[in-house]
């Protein structure tokens, strides 16, 4: 059984057995959860369906969050995607749209899959659903990619943390990007080592990102960080698939992320006391949101 403490060891095992990381994690989880691989695949299929539903629901001109602070941005991006004028191209603009849509669905009290958290829930669907739609990746393959992403997430959870309160946004959106990067590589048919390189590169690019939600709500800057998070994942995956390696191995990057998180002052860990949350505009918005609440 795997202890989910060492990704390099997991990649080596996958290589020895000539299987993907996803397949390695699937077999192990079936054993650990005392169930069958089919059962796990079925449940993961349901998670994928929920992701599709949240992407659908969130892409709306009228959707609004409880606070009224956010909503409707995925729709704007969708319209731009439809016009075919985006700078970053069809695949990326669709990935951004999906990431925003799922994150906006979350802020509007819609149903989502925390992957790994609610605040970062748009990144993995942004990567996986866009691969299915734009690169004709089969559902089976997408499900295996989610399992691969889950394996990466478990190692990060064990070695560091997945929560903004504990480790800043690098632990939430950074981890989600690393998971999405590995998932993209797995769907594109890359090797397990490439998946790890992609995860490492994604995580390195969000190292130090603080958790600073305006008014303590999972909206600003969270939703837009989902858009950037999926772009970082795509960049990292394409680099890895081109054969670019992460100079620092992924396990060490995860440990560095943990250390950076521990060094972060409390004001930058979900308390809404620092960063974006402490700007004059954020303070003004906070006052308005709470006033509105009082009058209700």
């Amino acid at each position, binding site marked *: 059984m795997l202890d989910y403490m060492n990704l390099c060891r997991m990649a080596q095992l996958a290589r020895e057995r000539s299987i993907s990381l996803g397949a390695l994690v699937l077999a192990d989880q079936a054993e650990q959860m005392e169930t069958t691989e089919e059962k796990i695949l079925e449940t993961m299929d349901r998670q994928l369906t929920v992701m599709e539903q949240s992407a659908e629901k969130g892409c709306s001109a009228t959707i609004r969050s409880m606070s009224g602070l956010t909503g409707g941005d995925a729709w704007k991006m969708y319209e731009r995607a439809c016009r075919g004028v985006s700078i970053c191209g069809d695949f990326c603009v669709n990935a951004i749209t999906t990431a925003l849509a799922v994150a906006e669905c979350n802020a509007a009290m819609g*149903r989502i899959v925390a992957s790994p958290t609610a605040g970062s829930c748009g990144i993995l669907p942004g990567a996986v659903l866009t691969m299915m739609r734009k690169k004709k990746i089969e559902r089976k393959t997408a499900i295996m990619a989610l399992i691969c992403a889950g394996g990466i997430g478990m190692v990060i959870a064990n070695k560091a943390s997945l929560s903004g309160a504990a480790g800043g946004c690098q632990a939430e959106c950074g981890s989600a990007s690393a998971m999405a990067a590995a998932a993209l590589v797995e769907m594109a048919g890359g090797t397990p080592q490439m998946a790890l390189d992609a995860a490492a590169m994604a995580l390195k690019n969000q190292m130090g990102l603080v958790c600073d939600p305006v008014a303590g709500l*999972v909206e600003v800057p969270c939703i837009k960080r989902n858009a950037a998070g999926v772009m970082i994942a795509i960049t990292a995956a394409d680099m890895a698939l081109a054969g670019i390696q992460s100079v620092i191995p992924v396990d060490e990057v995860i440990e560095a992320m943990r250390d950076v998180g521990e060094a972060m002052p409390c004001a930058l860990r979900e308390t809404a006391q620092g960063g974006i949350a402490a700007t004059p505009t954020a303070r003004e918005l906070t006052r308005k949101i709470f006033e509105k609440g009082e009058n209700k």
Partner: protein
Amino acid sequence: MNIFDIIGPVMIGPSSSHTAGAARIGYVARKILAKEPVRAEIDLAGSFAETYRGHGTDRAIIAGILGMKPDHEDLPRSLEIAREKGLQYRIETVRLPKCHPNTAVIRLWAEDGDMTEVEGASVGGGNILITRLNGLESAFTGQCNTLIIPHRDTYGVIAGVAQALAAFRINIGNFRLTRQAKGNTAIMTLEVDGDVSRELLMLLRALPNVLHVVYLHANE
């Protein structure tokens, strides 16, 4: 931890701790009352008190009290549903000394006057810790199958419960006993491996000096 703790849970947003965890605390309170609640008093403390409206914490807790799981589509409409169903509720923000940052105290009443008080904390990722039960200290997460058994504090009750579980080949993973004063009501909380069957629950309920048996299934 397994793969669905990472790719999951499926939940109503926006926050796993302020929404999904809050719904679970409400749900556990309802399970412990074990009847249809007609009145609810909810005290919110810490960051629950500060951000509850923006996170829908109030809606999530009421949804849980109405028996909804954290992924129930109707969760955002729970306040309206409570009014339709005639559940009276009152939500207040309070200061609780030395509590976890996200804590709620929930008092529920059934039609017949039965009452339960549950204090729970949302500890991250949608996970919860029940910290007090009817005034007695407690500590369970609901992540394992859990039996909560208020009983008269007298000899032989614990042995009776343990024997009944053994007869059904159920292993006890964790055991906790709290009591107010000798001879009063005490509560045992047992986390068990394997599923507790209907027959076993009936047997436990019939034991002398057992007042009540609540069973929380881990997947609820």
